[in-house]
């Protein structure tokens, strides 16, 4: 009996391992030497292993610049193997655009290369990274095995940066979190916007400041025009050849902000606000209902505070 059980358990776990082992990462060519891995437009689940994010890389004359490393060690390793199938060049620099777990938990696979982020991002990863990893273990399971925190070891700043023989411009922004980095590749005029831009996928807001975020989107829109951006890679959702994802993200945030304020002004409490239906246009957007509910949790208390008046 015991033997049967242990065989059964071994079988089950090896099956689970097989099902949860391959992210099937295929680099999508965007421009000369510029590639992206496009994730599912979904929540973290045991079936997608957390592959809901867009990452990317840029091949320069001397080396490769990696932009975000995905949700797990396994993702990072498979990403690195996929990069190696495109180019034998070494990894010159890894960039973490911000401190959310699907963007840096693959760092371990690049531990031999410099890993850079904005100062605030590095602090966020160091302080919240372990809790994020635990949460992803809970949400996706076995895909996360072996994943441990590897914090950035270089501090990046806004401005031009030469890396791997490629000319980049780093934009230090905020709104999605307190520190969001966007990366512009001059040769190909490709902008990696990180999670400042979502495309046809509901934005996430656990550390968002909607006012800052909307200002930042305006700045990004201007940057797109000034630098004649030819490809825009959002943090989540399909890539675009124009600025429409910026407008799409701004429209969602504007609606969300207004909706929460109205709700508070009308006297609704959090449960009543959660129960409000989404506008027609957003009902079929992937994970819109779930992200709206999360955003109510994150942002409604502040909207509510604004709606009340002092009594003492």
């Amino acid at each position, binding site marked *: 009996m015991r033997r049967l059980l242990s065989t059964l358990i071994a079988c089950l776990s090896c099956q689970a391992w097989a099902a949860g082992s391959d992210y099937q990462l295929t680099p999508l060519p965007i421009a000369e030497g510029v590639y992206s891995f496009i994730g599912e437009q979904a929540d973290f689940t045991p079936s997608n292993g957390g592959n809901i994010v867009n990452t990317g890389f840029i091949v320069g004359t001397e080396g490769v610049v990696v932009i975000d490393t995905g949700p797990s060690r396994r993702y990072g390793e498979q990403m690195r193997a996929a990069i190696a199938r495109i180019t034998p060049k070494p990894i010159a620099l890894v960039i973490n655009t911000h401190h959310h777990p699907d963007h840096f938990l693959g760092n371990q696979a690049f531990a031999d290369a410099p890993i850079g982020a904005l100062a605030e991002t590095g602090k966020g990863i160091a302080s919240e990274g372990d809790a994020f990893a635990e949460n992803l273990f809970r949400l996706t399971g076995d895909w996360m095995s072996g994943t441990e925190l590897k914090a950035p070891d270089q501090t990046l700043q806004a401005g031009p940066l030469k890396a791997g023989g490629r000319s980049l411009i780093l934009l230090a922004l905020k709104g999605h979190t307190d520190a969001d980095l966007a990366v512009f590749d001059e040769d190909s005029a490709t902008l990696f916007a990180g999670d400042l831009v979502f495309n046809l996928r509901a934005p996430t807001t656990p550390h968002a400041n909607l006012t800052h975020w909307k200002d930042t989107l305006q700045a990004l829109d201007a940057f797109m025009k000034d630098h004649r951006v030819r490809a825009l890679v959002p943090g989540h959702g399909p890539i675009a050849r124009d600025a429409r994802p910026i407008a799409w993200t701004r429209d969602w945030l504007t609606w969300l902000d207004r909706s929460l304020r109205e709700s508070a002004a*009308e006297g609704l409490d959090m*449960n009543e606000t959660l129960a409000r239906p989404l506008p027609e246009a957003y009902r079929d957007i992937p994970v819109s209902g779930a992200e709206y509910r999360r955003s109510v949790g994150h942002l409604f208390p502040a909207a*509510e505070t604004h709606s*009340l008046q002092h*009594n003492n």
Partner: protein
Amino acid sequence: MIKLASTLACAILLTTAVTPPVLATERPTDPLDSPRWSDMEKGMLSGAPYVFDTRVRVDAPGTAENPLNVPITIDATALADVKEILVFADFNPILEILRFYPDAAPAYIGFRAKLQQSTPVRAAVRTGDGVWHVGGTLVNTVGGGCTAPSMGSTSSEWQKRLNEVTTRTWNEGPMSGRLRMRIIHPMDTGLIAGIPPFHLESVVLSDEAGHPLARLEVSQPVSENPVFTLSRGSTTGALQAHGRDNNGNTFNVRIPQ
């Protein structure tokens, strides 16, 4: 394997069948099927008569994203002669969340609570005949809500603003009669080493002449900087709110209509 399982199942069924029927007939079955219910009825209801009653509406998200801020709304206005509403969570380290006495106000209250893990959230509503009417809902959450330090305990901002009260009343439209009230308080549970329990303990809402409309006994699991949603019913004019925490700090405010 399957055979073993079915044998086991049979054994369990047999055991159930021979249990004295007194249990099955005298005690209502918990609709939320919580293994903690028998402790709850003894501990929280002190063995008093009770019924599970769908007229007690407990609204909370099935999955709460933030265990520190789980919205809970209790509506017992379908019951007559409500004396007391006791809100508790079977699996919280501190079971009692709050008691609400709607003396001259509708039996309706909304607030947010900290939940330590997935748990039934219940409202037991005592009517004038002494019977508890119990409603509830299950909340799934990632947990940790009661053993995370308050934001207040990690900054000094709250010291300047302790017991600061902000409110608003709605006098027309669909929310007519509603009062919302926020009180700045860290609501420390005492479950974190080195941070003693420090929480709002009582809030009394009165009309302009000082007659109590509703009274609240607040326990540690109510979220930091509590926000209460109440109904003033048909009472008109300004209201007064008086509050006290477990360290003796008080507030007294007048709420204009």
